């Protein structure tokens, strides 16, 4: 008999978090396009309409700026909305509400009213969805003070971080990955919250620190296997949240390995990898034996053709090449 905990998908882990937090707190409600009768575009909200009713699981018109703003107002009134934007690509329509209102209201009104809300949305590329449906916009949100930014890579983190996000008093941008919804793994129980600002070591190693988040964690771990076959042990670290950022754990690892690669599915210019590299240069320049390498999406709008799309997205071999470069080694052919 196996005593291992049951494994659930990333999708169902999120569903568990929503269900548990809705049962726990009546001020929590869900709102988004096709999340009720349709069970959600990615089925994250499956069954919740039936369980909690139409007042708390609200199908909306296609009106992202409108319902995101509605959520902000409801949060100002003390409710805890969880807004689902079908994909991160549509958040651009709601950016004024997120940046001009959600992130600033607590500050600019002198701390009179918090905005306790979560905006959930999946992103990422890999399904040939082409230029307008393949964004990774972590950097845009992380740029903005007043937001918290969460990027779970595993079912356990998806559940534990979403529960924390719902109980948090600030606007939380919760970025899921379309490519991870079917990923299985163990999850915590009802009271297992994962705090923000705590990076986790996904795989220990001595030769080079590789920082990756969300789906890129799995790309980095695949690269780690390939490198291990050549006797190179990378340390894969997942920041899990960008605001707050656990720079201590990242910097401690880099100080130990003296090398760093940052993997990010977004674009390179002023991106997540660029920002983390800047932090690491500040924190451990003297300990570095090689320049920090970035692995990013290609600096192009995402193309449709399968081969071009795959060439544009960070792959394990890109991570391998970056690690080898920090070690001043040739990539084996």
């Amino acid at each position, binding site marked *: 008999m196996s005593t291992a905990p049951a494994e659930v998908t990333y999708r169902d882990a999120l569903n568990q978090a929503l269900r548990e937090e809705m049962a726990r707190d009546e001020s929590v409600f869900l709102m988004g396009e096709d999340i009720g009768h349709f069970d959600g575009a990615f089925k994250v909200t499956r069954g919740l309409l039936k369980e909690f009713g139409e007042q708390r699981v609200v199908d909306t018109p296609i009106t992202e700026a*409108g319902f995101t703003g509605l959520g902000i107002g409801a949060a100002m009134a003390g409710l805890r909305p969880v807004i689902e934007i079908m994909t991160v690509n549509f958040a651009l329509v709601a950016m004024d509400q997120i940046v001009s209102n959600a992130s600033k209201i607590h500050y600019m009104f002198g701390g009179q009213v918090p905005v306790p809300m979560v905006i959930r949305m999946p992103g990422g590329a890999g399904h040939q969805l082409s230029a307008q449906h393949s964004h990774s916009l972590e950097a845009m949100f992380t740029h903005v003070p007043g937001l918290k930014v969460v990027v779970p890579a595993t079912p356990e983190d998806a559940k534990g971080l979403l529960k924390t996000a719902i109980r948090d008093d600030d606007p939380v941008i919760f970025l899921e990955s379309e490519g991870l919804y079917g990923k299985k793994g163990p999850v915590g129980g009802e009271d297992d919250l994962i705090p923000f600002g705590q990076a986790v070591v996904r795989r220990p190693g001595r030769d080079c620190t590789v920082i990756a988040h969300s789906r890129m964690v799995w790309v980095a771990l695949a690269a780690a296997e390939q490198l291990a076959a050549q006797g190179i042990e990378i340390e894969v670290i997942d920041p899990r949240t960008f605001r707050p950022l656990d720079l201590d754990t990242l910097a401690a690892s880099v100080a130990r390995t003296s090398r760093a690669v940052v993997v990010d599915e977004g674009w390179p210019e002023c991106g997540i990898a660029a920002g983390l590299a800047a932090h690491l240069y500040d924190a451990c320049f003297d300990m570095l034996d090689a320049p920090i390498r970035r692995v990013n999406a290609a600096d192009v709008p995402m193309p449709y053709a399968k081969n071009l799309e795959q060439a544009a997205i960070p792959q394990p071999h890109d991570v391998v090449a970056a690690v080898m470069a920090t070690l001043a080694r040739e990539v084996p052919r």
Partner: protein
Amino acid sequence: MSTSPAPLASPDEMRDMFRTMTLIRRFEEKASEEYMAGRIGGFLHLAIGEEAAIVGTVSALRPDDPLTSTYREHGQALARGSDPRAIMAELLGRATGICGGRGGSMHLMDLGRSFYGGYGIVGGAVPLAVGLAWAAKYRGGDQVAVTMFGEGAANQGVVSECFNMAGLWDLPIVFLILNNQYGMGTPVERAAAVDDFFPRAAAYDIESWKVDGMDVLGVRAAVSEAARLAREDGRPACVELLAYRYKGHSMSDPDTVRSSEEKERWQARDPLVTFERVLLGEGIMGADDIAAMRTEVQQVVDDAAAYAEQGPEVPVAELARNVYAQPWNDDPRGSALVRP
């Protein structure tokens, strides 16, 4: 719960309304002086000419009805009863300001009076009010959310989204379109395909109508009916108020676009002058009462300015305070990106 104000104001209420209109006029004039003296920075948008629209609206609401406004919102805060001292101190960027000097003229808020703030992106606050209405309904409360915005904002897409959501979900909200006929320097006829705005709400099955925004009693009656619809029937409503701002868009606008004939034509219908005639004519106030009220209001405004000028600056050490409601470390600034 308090009861809703009656559509027809009592003599006491009329005296209060006239005092508040006078307070707004004098406050804005004083703010203009403070700006010219270099003590107010940034933008300063004055509401002179819009006093009837503001006071008529607020007087028709319960104190617990949540209200949002644009960046031209000193009047709304004053009408809600916020302390003129704290408002002026905010305009001067002092620690004693109503938002601790973080918001300035465009971002006043007084949560204790259900004034949910002034917002700087045209049309951007309207969905917040829809959310406030949503929350009232969600909790089974009987508050009515009211959002005041201009005819310029009515051209923003998100406002149409809000009409749709409110109509679709039967939300208790009043959309108050203060049509002052200019979006900065662009007149309605050069900005809108149709120069009435209330039919846009009507297109979403929202009861809506247009009234003279220079007549405070008419505004109150219209907004009372709109609030009644929202409160009792659970339906949104929309009132368009036709009014005129006497000054330019902001203090930095020399106001050269509008003709002096047009300004004079509107100022001949000044809301304070016309309401004063009503009060005198009906014997609700005598000339002596009005003179005494004006003296008292001027003292309040002068005192507010003196208080603001003497207020301490905000300590720079508090620069990053309140970026987050729930900061993640003990950093007194509360927002350091990186854990120490």
